């Protein structure tokens, strides 16, 4: 449960017994061939894995340096890497005898993934979402309802993600006997960071083998965006013991990491204790958690998974901050050059590839994870560019 000084289980006592049961079950089923076979089957035949390792030839030529490859998590069922983790956690929940899944969601992506798997498993599903977010994301709310989930608009506090987390944790505390909490990122108390890492590491397990098969060698660098950090830790995991492979996480600088309108936790955060873990957080002097900002709802989180903090501290991974401007430009660039509309989250990683590739040789290679597809972001990009889309 610890990554150096980071991680841990900083939760109310009422949650501890369930977290311990969860940890035991997780450890147990990691060794259970039948569980692993069923998970592999779900990943292959429902989530659509393995995802492609795509050689972006036009982009490589245009940038004039390293060969750029995209790990295409956007091609998964439901359009993002989220499903890998939800399948793992939900299957574990099913084995633990749970009848109901709980999750919180901000923009709605993790909620949709959770509702999807709940439908597939025939489990009840309750999604907690701040009232501000249910208003802003009415379409995603309806999508979750179509999938059979009950969406609870949370009217407490500032009515956004953190209030939804409070409400969901309380709901879980009240019904942990028949209910599993599905954590959306590599954050929270142990065992969630290690569980999410484990279930997302299929990304680098595949990409490492694909790289050996398609390139004949390991990549020079692996680049992924970091909010809580689940797609990044999954993208890095199987390369951590390959010292030649550079690992680079790209977090959201928002309007700039020197401004208050940022979500660049690794760049600007201080150690703290929040949401069950010791990690880095954007916070004020007293330790109150700061409001954060990024154009990307998926990176708009005041903390980061504890393993990333440790990877940074030991120098095994580097973390860079990418502004809204850079991410939007990268979003547009990859659309025009490769015909791929990627998630604005993923565009933060693409933006760094645009900087990195030209500094490298053509015989070197970068694997950049496209964590999700960007259909959800098209309207926001238009707005960012001042284009008015008046739909009937």
């Amino acid at each position, binding site marked *: 449960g610890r990554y150096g000084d980071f991680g841990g*289980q*900083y939760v109310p006592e*009422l949650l501890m017994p369930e977290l311990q049961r969860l940890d035991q079950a997780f450890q147990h089923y990691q060794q259970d061939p039948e569980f692993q076979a069923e998970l592999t089957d779900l990943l292959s035949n429902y989530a659509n894995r393995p995802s492609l390792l795509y050689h972006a030839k036009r982009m490589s030529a245009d940038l004039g340096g390293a060969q750029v490859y995209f790990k295409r998590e956007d091609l998964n069922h439901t359009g993002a890497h989220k499903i890998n983790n939800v399948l793992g956690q939900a299957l574990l929940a099913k084995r633990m005898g749970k009848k109901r899944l709980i999750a919180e969601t901000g923009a709605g992506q993790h909620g949709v993934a959770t509702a999807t798997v709940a439908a597939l498993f025939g489990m009840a599903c309750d999604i907690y979402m701040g009232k501000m977010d249910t208003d802003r994301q009415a379409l995603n709310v309806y999508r979750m309802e179509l999938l059979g989930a009950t969406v609870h608009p949370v009217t407490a506090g500032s009515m956004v993600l953190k209030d939804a987390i409070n409400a969901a944790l*309380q709901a879980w505390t*009240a019904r942990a006997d028949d209910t599993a909490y599905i954590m959306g990122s590599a954050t929270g108390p142990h065992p969630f960071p290690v569980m999410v890492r484990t279930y997302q590491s299929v990304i680098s397990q595949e990409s490492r083998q694909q790289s050996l098969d398609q390139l004949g060698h390991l990549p020079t660098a692996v680049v992924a965006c970091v909010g809580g950090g689940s797609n990044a830790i999954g993208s890095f995991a199987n390369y951590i013991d390959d010292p030649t492979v550079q690992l680079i996480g790209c977090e959201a600088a928002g309007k700039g990491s020197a401004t208050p309108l940022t979500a660049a936790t690794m760049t600007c955060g201080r150690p703290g204790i929040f949401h069950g873990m010791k990690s880095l957080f954007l916070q004020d002097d007293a*330790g*109150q958690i700061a409001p954060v900002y990024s154009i990307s709802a998926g990176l708009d989180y005041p903390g980061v998974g504890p393993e990333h903090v440790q990877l940074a501290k030991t120098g095994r991974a580097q973390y860079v901050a990418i502004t809204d401007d850079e991410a939007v430009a990268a979003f547009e660039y990859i659309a025009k050059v490769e015909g791929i509309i990627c998630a604005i989250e993923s565009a933060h990683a693409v933006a760094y590839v645009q900087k990195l590739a030209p500094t490298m040789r053509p015989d070197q290679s970068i694997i950049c994870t496209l964590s999700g597809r960007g259909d959800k972001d098209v309207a926001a990009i238009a707005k960012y560019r001042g284009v008015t889309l008046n739909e009937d």
Partner: protein
Amino acid sequence: MKTKLTVNFKHEPALLSTVVAGDPNFEQTVSQVVTLAQAGCDLVILAVPFSDPVADGPVVQAADERALKAGTTPAQVFAMVAAIRQQTTMPIVLSAYANLLYQYGYAAFAAKCQALAIGGVIVPDLPLEEQGELQPTLAAQGIALMPQVGTTTTPKRAQAIAAAATGFIEVLATPGQAPTVTSTQPVIAALRAVTELPIVILSETTTVAATELATVADGVVIGSTMVQLIATQSSVLSQLTAMTKALRQALDASHH
């Protein structure tokens, strides 16, 4: 482990109250706590407001927000205690989320508590497994670290918590389920088997409920009910007095 928190409450069963420090402001918090002391409260748990009180329900969360909006910081909470100490010697403990102590510095926090005769600290998001980083520092200043246990906590775990506990032990029901004599008895029995520390129950209170719970515990904590009263009553101090006196009388009457 010895701490300076006097567990010989003034009354038996004891009446404890939660107040969110700084809700609605510095001065009124001071007056509220003094009023509670005068009305017969045995101990006040002064909650340091936090941006994200994940262990608390909507009532305390809203109070925290008001207190933060009023500019309340941990440093100010200590100043409130100093002001309260001018008027009453009633035991005071702080409730604070781990990050607030962590940012203040554990040693500095403990020293400040010691200087202000704050007998102990409740940290709602610091379970047994994580207490090691804080407890010795508090203990070195004689400050108690009071744990919470749930009604569904296993006897074994409850006893492990009790073994590490100082000050008193607070028993909590599962959210949404009011604690009852029946639901709290098993874990209290397990605790009593290994500890002499007072055991109190967090009660979402009516005087009847509090009185009943007091039959199995050493006291009751009036939490969000008190916070809600402060939030919604215009004549807060007289209401606090009235409510505390009613509870006090009920508890006294129940004790033979």
